């Protein structure tokens, strides 16, 4: 396979990944790494580098439309980015000392979790509690547009959410994924924010989280222009298309399909690195 064929195939795969990632709110990165590793046999470090930059592209591209529509909460994003950037730098620094096998295993676990996450998506108990005092101090409560007009929401359990965000940051730095599933977990399940606010704010934060580890990866030589080029050019239009569909589409079937793809990739990666020839 020559570079031209390789680039075209990677481009097509990345486009699909970006589209599905945006629709399910998980981000394309979580598929890009296993896709490059298990389908094309790319070294996981190159795959992580390419995925990381594509994650920044997706986040910035989609976030601007979510921000303007009033879904993403700038302050919640800003506050939790403190946790994710710290985590991401730690993760990227650790990555150098972790063996490729261990990295693969962690990625597989993150994939399985992401699949589980997009599979269940249960409605959380909607308790209109009195606003948390820390949330009020940090001005984390806000409004978001719904078909019935603007709705108010409150943030709860801030320290716990902050803690989960550090973990999300470490995973992002370690694996070059946006770790959107963990960010949404922190905001939707722990802090009790509306699902749409959680997914869009998560998307908004992913760019900064990824940029934090991108610096480390760049100096280590993980970011290859020849590989990152088709990945970015595929993921970006895919994600933009997905972000526009997200607002109105019914996504149940896609969710299930996507989580199945994630599971298959996770098991394939485990098989290849532990049982298979490699």
């Amino acid at each position, binding site marked *: 396979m*020559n*570079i*031209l064929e390789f*680039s075209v195939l990677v481009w097509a795969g990345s486009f699909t990944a970006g589209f599905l990632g945006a629709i399910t709110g998980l981000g394309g990165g979580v598929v890009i790494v296993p896709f490059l590793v298990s389908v094309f*046999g*790319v*070294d996981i*470090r*190159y795959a992580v580098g390419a995925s990381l*930059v594509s994650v*920044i*592209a997706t*986040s*910035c591209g989609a*976030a*601007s*439309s979510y*921000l*303007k529509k009033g879904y993403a909460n*700038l302050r919640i994003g*800003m*506050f939790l*980015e*403190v946790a994710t*950037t*710290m985590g*991401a*730098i730690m993760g*990227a620094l650790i990555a150098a000392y972790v063996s490729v096998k261990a990295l693969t295993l962690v990625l597989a676990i993150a994939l399985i979790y992401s699949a589980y996450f997009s599979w269940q998506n249960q409605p959380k108990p909607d308790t209109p509690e009195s606003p948390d005092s820390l949330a*009020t101090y940090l*001005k984390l*409560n*806000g*409004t978001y547009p719904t078909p019935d*007009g*603007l709705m*108010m929401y409150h943030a709860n359990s801030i320290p716990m959410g902050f803690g989960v965000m550090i973990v999300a940051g470490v995973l992002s730095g370690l694996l070059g994924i946006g770790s959107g599933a963990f960010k949404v977990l922190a905001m939707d399940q722990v802090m009790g924010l509306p699902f749409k606010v959680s997914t869009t704010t998560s998307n908004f934060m992913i*760019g*900064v989280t*990824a*940029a*934090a*580890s*991108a*610096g*480390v990866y*760049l*100096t280590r*030589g*993980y*970011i*290859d*222009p*020849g590989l*990152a*080029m*088709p990945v*970015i*050019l595929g993921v*970006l239009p895919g994600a933009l298309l997905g972000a526009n569909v997200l607002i109105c589409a019914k996504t149940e079937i896609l969710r299930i399909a996507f989580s199945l793809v994630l599971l298959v990739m996770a098991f394939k990666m485990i098989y290849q690195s532990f049982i298979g020839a490699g």
Partner: protein
Amino acid sequence: MNRVNFIKLLKPEPAIANSICERKVRQKSEGKGVSGKEECGDVAENDNGLDGYEITDLSRNFQVNYQESATESANPLQLEQWIGNLLNYGVILSSSLVLVGGVLYLIRHGFEPVNYQMFQGEPAEFRSPVGVIQGVLSGHRRGIIQLGLLVLIATPILRVAFSCMMFIRQRDWTYTVLTWLVLFGLIYSFVGAYY
């Protein structure tokens, strides 16, 4: 909802009025950090506050413009618009650079074999911002792609720097400190990795 009721006294259209009130609640609570319902009552009392609002686009998003007075800080919604635009332009610039560099790269190297199975690490010129710029100046095609990637990485960093400036203008010191922490982390990841 009492929020809607009292506002009906001021304006006939409940849907529009409701959105004004909600937006107002948001701005007020962001400015002072008090809960929404108390503020709503507050708004009802000094209804002349509504004069500062102007509805520009009813059909889309219920956008409400806040007329800034000279001393007052920028509207949070406007801030979101600016940041949204910044992100857009960053992505457009970087993806055009990547596209141009990519086409040139494929024309030159398209028929060479692929080798990403073995990790060698990038050459020194693709590992630092200075090296990338030197690479572009000396006419390396992959250097153009790498420059596009750098612009892309810089976009969220710029976004953080920009929000930091906005928080300073709003005299929101808690968020100024938080934003600085994030910015420090981002700068560290580029500078610190050299040592």
